[in-house]
């Protein structure tokens, strides 16, 4: 019987709690290294750590793969993940929706801000050719998309948004080591408030470590993670714009 209130990993048999993990330690390859890896995993609270693979990486580094047994269980029934409630439409539906409900072109400005030079995310959403068989926003006849590229300052992004009278801002943050993306993302929303623009813009962030919950914490309207395609983002923007026509905020 599958008890969703106590979920543990499944390895070889039901509820055995078996997990696999891999990591490197800065120690020379050998039996001592394997013992160090075992002890480290035991310290993490996992039982029966077993080194199933160890490899000399050179430079006094060793890579390991271990199996171990987890004792903790989680209650699946209490898990809540915020999702965008508006339906995801396709390319044609989105353009038709804009014609029917907004009656003018939707203006979207996107950029990788701060020191981030990784445009792979913003390009997948915005570039004409798109990604994974979905056109990017530049291809949408009813959307005016401006992709500012990488290493854009928050001030420059806001200047552009004002210049083209944007409806939505997309910010991509791929580099997140030591959480460098957080001060940068929060500065943008606070600057938009200072400029009096926050209320009339749909502000969205995207990147591998972002999701809707994080976005809410940062003060964004939505946050899209890996695997997001242009129609996901465009559907959210146009529904949000229409919702705002009738709501208080």
């Amino acid at each position, binding site marked *: 019987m599958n008890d969703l209130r106590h979920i543990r990993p499944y390895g070889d048999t039901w509820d055995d709690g078996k997990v696999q993990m891999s990591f490197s330690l800065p120690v020379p390859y050998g039996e001592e290294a394997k013992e160090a890896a075992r002890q480290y995993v035991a310290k993490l609270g996992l039982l029966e750590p077993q080194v199933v693979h160890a490899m000399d990486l050179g430079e006094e580094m060793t890579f390991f793969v271990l199996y171990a047994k987890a004792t903790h269980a989680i209650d699946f029934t209490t898990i809540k993940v915020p999702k965008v409630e508006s339906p995801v439409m396709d390319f044609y539906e989105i353009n038709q929706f804009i014609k029917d409900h907004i009656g003018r072109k939707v203006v979207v400005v996107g950029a990788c801000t701060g020191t981030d030079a990784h445009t792979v995310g913003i390009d997948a959403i915005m570039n004409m050719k798109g990604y994974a068989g979905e056109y990017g926003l530049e291809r949408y006849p009813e959307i005016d998309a401006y992709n500012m590229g990488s290493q854009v300052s928050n001030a420059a992004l806001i200047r552009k948004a004002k210049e083209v009278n944007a409806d939505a801002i997309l910010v991509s943050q791929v580099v997140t080591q030591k959480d460098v993306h957080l001060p940068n993302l929060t500065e943008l929303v606070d600057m938009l408030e*200072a400029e009096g623009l926050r209320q009339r813009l749909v502000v969205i962030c995207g990147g591998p470590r972002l999701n809707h919950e994080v976005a809410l914490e940062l003060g964004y309207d939505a946050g899209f993670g890996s695997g997001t395609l242009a129609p996901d983002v465009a559907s959210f923007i146009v529904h949000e714009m229409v919702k705002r026509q009738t709501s208080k905020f």
Partner: protein
Amino acid sequence: MNRSPLWEQIDIHGACDVSIVGISKHAGKTTVLGRLIADAKEERRCLGVASIGLDGERVDSLSGIPKPAIWVPEGTLFATAIKSHGHNHAPVRWLEPAGISSPLGEVWIGQTQEEGPIELVGVRQLAHLLSLRKSFHELGADYVLFDGALSRMIAVSPEVADGVILASGAAVGNVDQVVRETLDAVQKLTVAVADAEVTAWVRKHWQPTGDVTNGAEISAETDGAPERIVYCHGAVTDETVLRWMGSSAPVWLIGRDPTCLFVSRETWRVFLRAGHHLQVLDRAPLIGVAINPSSPFGEPLDRHQLLAKMKAKIAVPVWDVMD
């Protein structure tokens, strides 16, 4: 009964709407909020509580680090996305929709019917805070507490708060790093307010003509004196400051309030040393600085050393909220 040192200072300033902001994530904002709520219960103050980020969830959504829960007494007013309020939270009577939609659903204002934990989620904008403050007071709150998010400063806007508490903690580094970051935040929060003459000049010459004009600047040389007043209605950035840095006459660069200042430590320092001034039209008073010597990332700091260094350099009261 011992009076709460935090509420005592709030009362000295006559503040009713207090915002708690931090120098970083995990600076201890929620701990301060919890302390204020617990002390308010002792003194029977009715509170309205909201967060501009995400509060009360057990594990931090960004780092996975456990966060303090928000435990409130019966009768507390609060705003949250109704769907995030689960059966493990305090029983609540939902009073009215706040008119705020979020990816977690509609935000409502509720009142706890018994004591217990709550979550605060869904509020994101200054406009949301303004609207909630009004509703909370109308529904009977004596005091409104706004919890900031990460290092966001928007909640200190004098439009929403008449008092500010700064939370500062070990999450940013060692004692000296924490003190330096705190001093930067204090400099911003206690920036000089322009005198009556300058304020009158701005009010006379600044003509808001719709929201599109935000961010515009007006400037003039003052009559007879070799000085220039520059008023910037939107964000004052390094770029703004550098534009006036080379001016041979002293410049009085005036921003709207501390939430509009995005000037780096170094640029600010050089600007002042060049004989110029950076001021604001209005700001909420800084009631005090609450320090949190523990860090989610490692060893706690020496609290006595941290307190002593802070107190030596900061003119407002400094507390260790864990005391």
